[in-house]
């Protein structure tokens, strides 16, 4: 039997290699035998995840601009904690040989988690949140791809019930850009203002303008400041083919629809739909949460239904629930329903259509 090295030598002879099999039809050493296809697209999980990281950069910068260096610090700490947690679990608890952190998904989770908390949050709290997001939300289910719930939202839900005061204290945008302590200047979020309308009526409130909402001069989580920055990142993902445009539109559309009905019924108490989709976490949820691949359905139809349902639940929580904001809970609720959606919302199969059925009956049995 010749070896692979022999082959490479023999192939240098004139006229290329001669077949040097040991008998008729014997397999040639060194030739790979595999089933088709033999081509694959230039795509990988890491490429997708790092593209999401890139898409989150405008929002990171907006957070930095409006809430100062404290926002950047929270983001950095969240990312570092998420990456460290995943690396530790994979290498030392699961004892796998290669860490999965290079795929970038832990970075995405860390960033999204930081974008869902106030910039003033104590750092030990964001570290704990990141540990829960990665440990409970992701690795407990088997790591990337296996988690039923969005890990960042699992972390946020944990923090909201563990540190309710710190999680709902909002720094005022632009007030203390260079300060690491934002506790001195706090304010309300746009949704918080309209939630506490009470009996005074909306017209009596001091509401931020739509331009402020769009650009980000509002109180809120790190990633909630600027709708514009989020949309920029989202459109980048649409352009790269990682986000189907109907999905974020379905989410925002259904929020607008439900809040719009309430607004039409009683504009004195309920704010208009444009305010709803520009304020709070609606934009971040629309472009980066309901579009998460792992925790949403598999068919496009299913994804649109998922997004639209999450939008309805968000609106209902905002309008009638105990919290001013409902994006993260609505998405977590819908995450739990993904297997049901997957079972019932199948893609259209070829050869089962109306046309195909008619042709089949016309053709008769064969």
């Amino acid at each position, binding site marked *: 039997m010749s070896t692979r090295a022999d082959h490479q030598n023999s192939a240098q002879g004139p006229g290329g290699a001669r077949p040097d099999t040991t008998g008729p039809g014997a397999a040639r050493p060194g030739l790979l035998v595999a089933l*088709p296809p*033999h*081509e694959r697209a230039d795509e990988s999980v890491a490429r997708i995840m790092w593209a999401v990281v890139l898409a989150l950069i405008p929002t990171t910068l907006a957070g930095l601009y409006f809430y100062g260096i404290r926002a950047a610090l929270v983001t950095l700490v969240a990312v570092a904690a998420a990456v460290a947690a995943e690396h530790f679990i994979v290498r030392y608890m699961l004892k796998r040989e290669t860490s999965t952190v290079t795929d970038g998904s832990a970075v995405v989770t860390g960033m999204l988690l930081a974008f869902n908390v106030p910039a003033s949050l104590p750092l030990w709290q964001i570290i704990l949140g990141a540990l829960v997001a990665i440990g409970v939300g992701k690795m407990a289910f088997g*790591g990337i791809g296996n988690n039923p719930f969005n890990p960042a939202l699992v972390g946020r839900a944990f923090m909201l019930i563990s540190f309710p005061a710190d999680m709902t204290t909002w720094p005022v945008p632009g007030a203390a850009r260079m300060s690491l302590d934002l506790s001195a200047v706090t304010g309300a979020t746009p949704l918080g203002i309209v939630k506490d309308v009470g009996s005074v009526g909306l017209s009596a409130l001091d509401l931020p303008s739509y331009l402020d909402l769009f650009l980000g001069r509002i109180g809120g989580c790190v990633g909630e400041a600027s709708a514009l920055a989020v949309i920029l990142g989202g459109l980048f993902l649409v352009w790269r083919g990682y986000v189907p445009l109907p999905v974020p539109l379905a989410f925002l559309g259904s929020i607008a629809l439900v809040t719009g009905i309430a607004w039409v019924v009683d504009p004195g108490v309920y704010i208009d739909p444009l305010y709803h989709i520009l304020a709070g976490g609606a934009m971040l949820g629309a472009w980066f949460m309901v579009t998460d691949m792992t925790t949403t359905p598999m068919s496009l139809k299913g994804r649109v239904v998922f997004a639209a349902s999450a939008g309805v639940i968000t609106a209902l929580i905002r309008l009638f629930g105990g919290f001013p904001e409902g994006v993260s809970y609505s998405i977590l609720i819908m995450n739990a329903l993904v297997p049901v959606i997957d079972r019932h919302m199948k893609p259209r*199969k070829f*050869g089962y259509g109306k046309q195909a059925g008619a042709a089949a009956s016309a*053709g008769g049995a064969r």
Partner: protein
Amino acid sequence: MSKYKTFTLGGVHPPANKLTGHLPIRDLEPRGTIAIPLSQHIGKPAELVVERGSEVRVGTLLARASGFISAPVHSSVSGKVKKIDSVVDAQGHRREAVVITVDGDEWEESIDTSPDLLEEIPLDRRMIASRIADSGIVGAGGAAFPTAVKFSIPEGRSVDTLIINGVECEPYLTADHRVMLEQADELIVGTRILMHEAGTARAIIGIESNKADAIELLQERIRIKAREGKIPEGFITVLALKERYPQGGEKQLIEAALGREVPSGRLPLDINCVVSNVSTAVAVYQAVQKNRPFIDRVVTVTGHKLVAAGGGGNFRVRIGTPVSALVDAAGGLPEDTAKIIMGGPMTGRAIPSLDVPITKGSGGLILMDASEASRLAVKNCIRCARCVGVCPMGLEPYLLEKLVQHERYEDAEKEGILDCIECGSCNYACPSNRPLLDWIRLGKGKVVELRRSRMRGNQ
């Protein structure tokens, strides 16, 4: 939006890599020994009619069709039958083959070897049918289904459109492209014969837009024939299609051209269509007009290293020629060749040895080096849904993979696993390098077994 038509569901767009499209077809002279397998088609192997020591010429019948779905096999060379032996085919199976020592190039006298174009087609459909059947023509697009069987239209059925498949959507392959350019007139006559045989007055030649020269040439030739009164206006049309894989799949091509879907588990005939490859149509011309059996075909020999070194091309090769002879003629095996694919890179088989013979269904040889040939490490499914999005049959490959892994074959059957056309788009698109099609293929086999045992149970 593109101005070209295409199919509706799924599809991918791999780099075309048509490295040899500009290289004219070269004849490869038969030499040495060749091995002609008795089973080069779907159906029963042919029945041997020669024995060791028999003298044969080009076109001599070696084995006749046995049963309804089968095809005869002819000698592609002149010489002496050295032995009847088993050879390893592209799938890695050992198959019975006639091994012939080549001596000269004597043709059977019944074959018209002149280069003249014979445009007058016979009107006797039975005569056409028997010529097609006797010449051993099988689908040259890869599936190798006997053409005579495909065109034996049962009582009560009719064909309104014949579709000639010049799509060649597989990357790398350029054999059909060259055939369309160099044998356009024969293709048109072959198409007319098949139309007559199928009883239809409409034929559509589907070609992807990346072969603009073939589209233009065929349109031009058809216009001239119509002007000369040889064919009616609108009798044969050329349809330019958008580049998209797997457009050359029969079901996808029909849908792209006519908007009709072949119902699940049915045949194109059920929606009044028949599809035939361009090279098959040329073979039909040669069989009916020249009495020439299916003894050779055009094969693309390609690969990045090979072509960069000035090798590669499109070769007219006698059936049974070993891959080694073809590779030598095309410039020799690049030294770090790690994989040899017979067929296209999406559906072709990686062959185990250079002794594998060229058969009626082999359209290409692709030489890949290790960097192109290796499979990457399989990662977790991240539910990105690309496999679902690219499946041209509307299936959910990720789900089929899971069901087959858990041996839930009945569920896989309900999910339509048998509708899978094995185009490989799901595997191609998967960012986690999951071997989705490997699992689906395994599952299809199991489901077919399941159905068989169910049928036995019902009897």
